[in-house]
Structures are given as C-alpha cells and as structure tokens.
C-alpha cells in the first residue's frame, strides 16, 4: 500500500486488475486504491507472476502493508538503526531539584533562595517565622537565623519575654572588667539549638539510682582479657540502646505532624571539646558488642576533639547520653538535643549505704541517672519504663556482653 498524501494512513483496494497466476510487467496497473482524499491506480514496478493477493477487493490496509506478492520480484530492504552521537552544546540546563518543598509541613511557604540557604547552612525552616506576606520565609529570615539568636518561635499567641539585647548586657557590666569573647559557629549553634530545645520541647524528668557492683566486677574481669579497656559509659550506651529497643514507643521523635518510630537505637554520646561539645552518634548500638562500642567511641571522641567529624556522624538518633560523673556531679538533668526525644544524664559513681535484705546496712556503689523526656512523644510511663529497663540492664549486666 503506497503512501498517498502526507496525512493518509490507510487505503481501500477498490479494484484488482490482475488475478493470482497472471504474468505482470513493470508499468502494468495492478490495482486501484481509494483513500479519504483521492483514488489512483498502482502499477507494478517489477516483472514476475502475481503469486498471492493478501488484501482483496473492497478491503482496507494500512500504508506500507504488503497487499500482494509478485514471484521473482519483490524487494526487501533492511535499514540499520543510526548510531546516536550527541552534540556538546546543551540548550536547556535545568539543575537538580535539591532544596526541599516550597510549602513546609506547617503550611509556611519559602522562597527558592531561602530554601537553598537553609539547606546550605543547616537551618531548620520549620523553626523560623517568615517576614514575607502570609508568613512567607525569605532569604533575610534565614540569614538572621544563621547569626545570633533569632526571635523565638512560639506555637501559641502570647509573645515570649525577650532576653536583654547585647548592648544592654554590655552596659550593665560596663563598670567591671571583662573580656569579650566573640561567638564562633559552634557556640552560636549550641546557643540556638538548646534555646530552641528549652523553649519548644515540653521536658519532664525521671530519675533513679543504679547499683554498679555487679557491673564493676564483670568489667574488671573483661578488661583483663581485652586489650582496650571498657568504660562504664560503654556499658551505659549499650544498656540505653537495649532499653529503647524494649520500649519502642520511646525510640521515636516528634516530626511536627507525625511521630517517627525507629527500628534501630542510634545513640548520641556527648563529648566535651574545647569551647563546647559535640554529640557523635553510635548507629545500631543495640547490635554492637561492648568492645565495638568502646572502640567506636574512642575514635569518635578523638575526631570530635579534632573537629574532624562528618555531618552524618553527629546527626540523627532518637536519644543521647551525657555523663558528668567524672567531674563529680552526683545528679543532673540534661537538655534534649532537638529533634531527639530524650537524653540520659549519668552522674558520678559513689559509695552509698543501703538497707540489705536482712535489715542490715551495707554499702553499694551506685550512680544517679536522670532521663529527660519530650512529653510529646514519651509519656510519663514510657519514660519510667525506659529508665527501669536501663537500670535492670546495668544491674544485671551479663546480657550486655552478648
């Protein structure tokens, strides 16, 4: 069926001039076709015998379909696919979409530049108040958030009490000698994040005392066998991880319009460094051996002090541990690191008198631990359960060696 006209897709054979078996010469009309636009005769282009008629009189066939076969004639051509080589010039250069949605989960819109700045500076847009129309966040809002403490974000209407401005503070102390320390990025970040934590996370605190004698005895034995020594902190990390695994609802974080409940217990461990602190994260702590946790902690602590941690090494996790015991602190309540939902504060191990089962007084080595919880995620009972699980794991520590 030949191509008749640019838009024609099929044709009807109206008349066959030849029959099967007839001899055919080039130029002799074979059949007449009719399209939606016109009709015409189609001649043979080769000599031979009409061997087969595939589309009969009155039938329709698409353009290029084989309608008949002429024996000792017929041409078949195979056309190779062309190889594709592309030019160097690109006329469209759309970049990747990398900077998050225009509308946040809390309904606030953000300009494209502000989104980019927020990602590059690690600013959490959901904590910002925008100065644009309808609360839209613009570039200078992000810029302001990157410097000294911004205006606090409140969920409810009443305005928070403002802290005194920098000049007011300086003038308050102008009569006394002082050294003015400029703020570095870490100090700014600590100030901003912990301020945010205290103002936006509903903290509550549960405390208990943990008897360490069993653990200390087992640790002494283990440290004889191991090259690297295990610390009480290493035990605490694993015990806390197992405690969170046993109370899955507490191994979770508040995500604004939902709660994210994690499969693994990634535990952040506070490490004091010069000028501040960092909290590197031990991933899947529940499944790591004490020796592995110990080695990893040593490495992370070293690199933290040298400021050589990668961002992914100090981000994540639902909970952290902070230990001030080596400084003689008996008990303290730590501030949760957003967006986590709890932090376990560990105090110093001390000899304390306690009543024994036979009514006599004897001494035990114990430490006071306090779990700070985000009440949006971890209710009172859950916090208590985590704490109890932790205490149990530390006081009967044999399973920690698994």
């Amino acid at each position, binding site marked *: 069926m030949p*191509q008749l006209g640019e838009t024609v897709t099929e044709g009807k054979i109206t008349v066959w001039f030849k029959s099967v078996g007839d001899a055919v010469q080039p130029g002799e009309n074979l059949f007449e076709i009719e399209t939606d636009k016109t009709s015409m005769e189609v001649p043979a*282009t080769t000599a031979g015998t009409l061997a087969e008629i595939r589309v009969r009189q009155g039938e329709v066939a698409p353009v290029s379909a084989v309608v008949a076969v002429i024996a000792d004639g017929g*041409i078949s051509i195979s*056309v190779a696919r*062309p190889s*594709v080589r592309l*030019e160097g*010039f690109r*006329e469209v250069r759309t970049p990747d979409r990398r900077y998050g949605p225009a509308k946040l989960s809390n309904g606030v819109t953000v300009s494209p530049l502000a989104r980019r700045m927020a990602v590059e500076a690690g600013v959490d847009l959901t904590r910002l108040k925008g100065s644009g129309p309808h609360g839209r966040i613009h570039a200078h809002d992000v810029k302001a958030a990157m410097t000294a403490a911004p205006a606090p974000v409140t969920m409810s209407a009443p305005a928070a009490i403002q802290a005194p401005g920098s000049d007011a503070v300086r003038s308050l102390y102008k009569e006394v000698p002082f050294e003015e320390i400029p703020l570095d990025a870490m100090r700014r970040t600590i100030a901003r994040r912990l301020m945010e934590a205290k103002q936006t996370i509903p903290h509550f605190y549960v405390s208990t005392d943990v008897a360490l004698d069993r653990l200390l005895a087992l640790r002494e034995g283990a440290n004889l066998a191991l090259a690297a020594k295990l610390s009480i902190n290493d035990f605490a990390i694993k015990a806390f991880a197992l405690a969170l695994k046993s109370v899955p609802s507490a191994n979770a974080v508040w995500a604004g319009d939902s709660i994210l409940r994690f499969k693994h217990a990634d535990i952040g461990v506070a490490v004091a460094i010069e000028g501040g602190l960092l909290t590197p994260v031990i991933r899947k702590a529940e499944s790591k051996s004490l020796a592995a946790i110990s080695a990893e902690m040593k490495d992370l602590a070293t690199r933290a002090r040298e400021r050589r941690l990668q961002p992914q090494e100090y981000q994540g996790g639902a909970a952290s541990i902070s230990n001030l015991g080596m400084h003689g602190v008996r008990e303290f309540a730590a501030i949760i690191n957003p967006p986590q939902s709890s932090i376990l504060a560990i105090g110093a191990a001390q000899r304390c008198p306690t009543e024994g089962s036979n009514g006599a007084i004897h001494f035990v080595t114990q430490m006071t631990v306090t779990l700070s919880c985000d009440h949006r995620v971890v209710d009172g009972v859950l916090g208590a359960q985590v704490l109890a699980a932790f205490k149990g794991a530390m006081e009967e520590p044999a399973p920690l060696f698994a």
Partner: protein
Amino acid sequence: MASRPTKAAVIDDISTELRLRMYRVQFELRECEQRAYDLFLQNLVKGTSHLSLGQEAVAAGFASAMEPGDLTFCTYRGHAHTLARGVPMDKVLGELMGRDNGLLRGKGGSMHLTSVDHGVMGSYAIVGAHIPIACGAAWRAQYKGAKDVTVCFFGDGTTNIGAFHEGLNLAVIWKLPVVFVCENNLYMEYTPIGDVTAVADPAAGRASAYGLESIVVDGQDVDVVYRTARAAYDKARSGGGPSLIECRTYRYSGHSRADPAKYRPEGELDFWRGKRDPIRIYRERLLASGIDESTLAEIEDVVHRRVDEATEICKAALPPSADLLYTDVYADGGWAWRN
C-alpha cells in the same frame, strides 16, 4: 509581439555530439524520475515529491546551453534541473530516500536539492521566493564584472505571486544578467492556469509590463529550447539584461505524490505522452537525421545501468546519523544560540 511555437527545422547549427548529449540527458532525466516514482510506490521515498516527467526538454535544453560557471535556481519540482547540471543520480535519489549519501545528507529533501559545486544554487519550496534571490546572484555577477549568467526556473502559477513581479521589475531596472524561464505545464497545482491568470500566456503575457520581449516556445522540442536559451544567455552575458521565456510543456504525473491528477480532461495525458513526448520527438528526429538505432539503444542501456547502479547504492546506504540534527544551523557548523 509573441513568437509562435517553432518547428525544428534544419539542425546543423547543433553538432551531432551535442544532439546525442541532449538525448542522453533527457533520457537520464526521464529514467531517473521514473525510478524515483517506483521507489515511492515501494515506500522507499518518503514525504512528498514533485515529478517533472514530460518536462525533460526544458531542463536538458537550458542546461546544455550553459557554461559551467552559470548558476541555476529552480522550484521544488527540481530533480531534472539538478540532474541536468551533472549532479550524480545516486546523490539525488539518495536525498529523496533520506539516506546519508544524499546530496544534502537527508537534511533538505526533495524540495531543496542544492549543489553549489555544480552551480545548482537551490530548489525552493516557497513559490516565487527564488526569483529575487536569482536577481541577487545576477547582481553579484554584474557588480564583480563576472561573466556568468543566472537562470531561474519556475512554473506558470508563480507568475501570479508578488515576488515574481518584484523580481522581474528589479532585474529590468538594474539590467541584471538573469534569464527567467517559465515552465508552463498548463496547471497551477490542481487548477488549470487559465482559470487563475488574467492573461492567456502567464509569463509571456506579462513581459510587456516589464518592458521585456514576449517569448513563447515549444518546451517539448529540445533544439528549440537550446537555441532560445543560447540567445538569452548571450544577451545577458553581453550586458543586454534579463529575458523572460515561456516554455509550453506538460507534466505527466500529478502536482505531487498526493495528486493522481484526475482534474485533467480525458485524453489530454495520452495526447502529450504520445505526440508531444519530448524524448519520442527527439528520438525520431535523430533517427531521421541518420543516427543509428544502435547508438541510441546503447545510450539508453548505459542510462538504465546507471540508474540501477545508483538505486542499489542508495538502497545500501544508511539513514543519516542523529548528530546531523544539530549541524550547520550557523556558520560555525553548530546550533549554539546561547553561552
């Protein structure tokens, strides 16, 4: 004052060698164009094609009278004009078939056949557009003091479009070395030319409006065409300015692929294909002048062979590669419109 179609009289001002050459050229044009049609029926030629079967004498006559440096411009019905200037058959067929060996590597197609090396300065698909362009080429020759002539072919329908009139006027007032050739094949696309033209002779009838001589010749007689062409070229080359020549001819096929030309009166096609066929006319004349049948048969065999060879070359050729999409938009060879 119109010249009436002349019968070919004694042909001793045209040498035997030239006669045989013009016969060969006409035969090539016919066979190659016929082959193009066959390939179309096999769906190897895609898109659209405008055949000049029946108009061979015009192309062959004008081309044979040209010098190698002369320039031609023609319309989308340009296969014959392209071949007549010596462009190889496989390049023309290859272009029609959209292959990489095509004259334009498949980028222009049937309607834009061009070979600057042969002086074929393009085939033009917008009716009449090339008439002022041909004037420009002639202006360059005049400006540079060059002796080449520009020959511009177009159909009867073209004489009604604006660019025809602007171009003719400019060529006359600047006395440009350009020869305008109207191939009056009696039909403007699907319509008889008489229905849409204010004068009986579409081109010759307009000549006086531009101060030009009115010339009508028998376009099916290659000797007549040749002589007319020579006279016009001589005039242009010697600074005598442009000519407008109307050739009476006929096309056997429809306007284009899509057109089976059912609008023709009964018997018209057969008449022209019979008594007025340029190749038959010339063949008879050559035989009558003493040329041997075997000479003509040999010419025809060679042409058949060359058409077959060209066909096979094209069938074996690949389509153009995709990177050709982006080449030659600009003079640097690329298409970059931005940095």
